[in-house]
């Protein structure tokens, strides 16, 4: 610990260089990070806004499972499960599945009831490209929760010539 301080103090130039080079590395790394990883397409933001309004969905409680590598995007098994006691006073009202890279963001919406027993379902979806898929749950208490899954698609669906 004392040695570190000594290193810093012994050479003002070294300290300054260290500081500037660290800033430089930080600057470079943010320009390398692809924008797509940080921002969603406008249609996707709009689709999510239509669901949650002015609420902010919290991370957690929603588990979305898609195979991480998919041979054909035409028929991909998708499973979603939401933690909830599913009682008449505390249950999942709806789950919305939103795609970040399909021609249209909405994939499906399912509406549960207290008679559902479990807020779980499995279906088969189309994925146009490697992407992140979101699952946004709307609870009976008005709160929103979200989860996501990333997948790599080698043969895409949706847009093709016949």
């Amino acid at each position, binding site marked *: 610990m004392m040695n570190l301080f000594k290193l810093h103090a012994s050479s003002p130039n070294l300290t300054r260089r260290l500081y500037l080079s660290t800033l430089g590395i930080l600057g470079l790394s943010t320009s390398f990070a692809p924008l797509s990883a940080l921002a969603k397409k406008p249609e996707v933001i709009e689709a999510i806004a239509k669901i949650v309004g002015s609420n902010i969905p919290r991370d957690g409680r929603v588990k979305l499972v898609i195979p991480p*590598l*998919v*041979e*054909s995007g*035409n*028929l991909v*098994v998708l499973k979603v499960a939401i933690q909830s006691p599913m009682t008449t006073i505390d249950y999942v009202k709806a789950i919305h599945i939103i795609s970040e890279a399909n021609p249209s963001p909405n994939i499906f919406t399912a509406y549960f009831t207290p008679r559902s027993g479990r807020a779980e379902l499995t279906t088969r979806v189309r994925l146009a490209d490697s992407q992140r898929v979101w699952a946004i749950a709307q609870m009976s208490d008005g709160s929103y929760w979200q989860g996501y899954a990333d997948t790599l698609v*080698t*043969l895409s669906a949706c847009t093709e010539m016949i």
Partner: protein
Amino acid sequence: MKTSPLCKQWLYVLFAIMIAQSVFAAEIAKVNRQSSYQLMTAENQAMQDDPNLNPALFWVMDGHSLWKEKTGNKNVSCASCHGDSGKKMSGVATQFPKILRGKLRTLEGQINQCRASQQDASALAYESKELLALTTFVASQSKGMPIAIQETPLNTKDLQQGKQFFNERMGQLNLSCAQCHQDRAGLKLGGSLIPQGHPTAYPIYRIEWQTMGSLQRRLRNCMSGVRAKQFEYGSTEMAQLELYLMWRARGMPLETPGVRP
């Protein structure tokens, strides 16, 4: 003109490769034969295995309805001769293509032949919903049974022609079926594993087509893939190639109706 020692060396290497190629073009040993089912993801395998999840089951049901439907000028159904349940068709699909009345027929071809002669009905077009449904229904009666094609004095000429098609280079890419599906089966092309190409599950629900399709459709896809002139649906060449492929897969169990990516 004398050939240099280096040139001679390369000639020997080339010669050895050519010999190796012809040895390579021999059959895959029975113990090493592998259905492309083995190369699928667990989800797709489950889709094939579970009747509740397999979309092809709708075509089986459609096929059963058509089986029982009276049609043609003679107004009879397939069931009138072959029974309502279709169970009498057990073992039939594993024997096709076969020589009947001197002509090599595929299962689709035989269904159309039956329609013409017994029902006086028009032939169903290849890849039509009706022909696929009937073929799937009939073939699924043999599910689990081993493919039973043997070389016989009757079919040997067609079988050898089919074998020639399999081993012959074709198309602008100048590739033969054997070069990928025999010599390089199990290796990767692009991101996918190359299958041995055994027609164990046809007709299949192909996820890429999002519908049922025949072996001939799949073979035409392959041919356009190497930029070759595709064999026509229902042609003799197609039947001969089918015969060779089924013979090459003899002993392997039929999986119809299959699911493939």
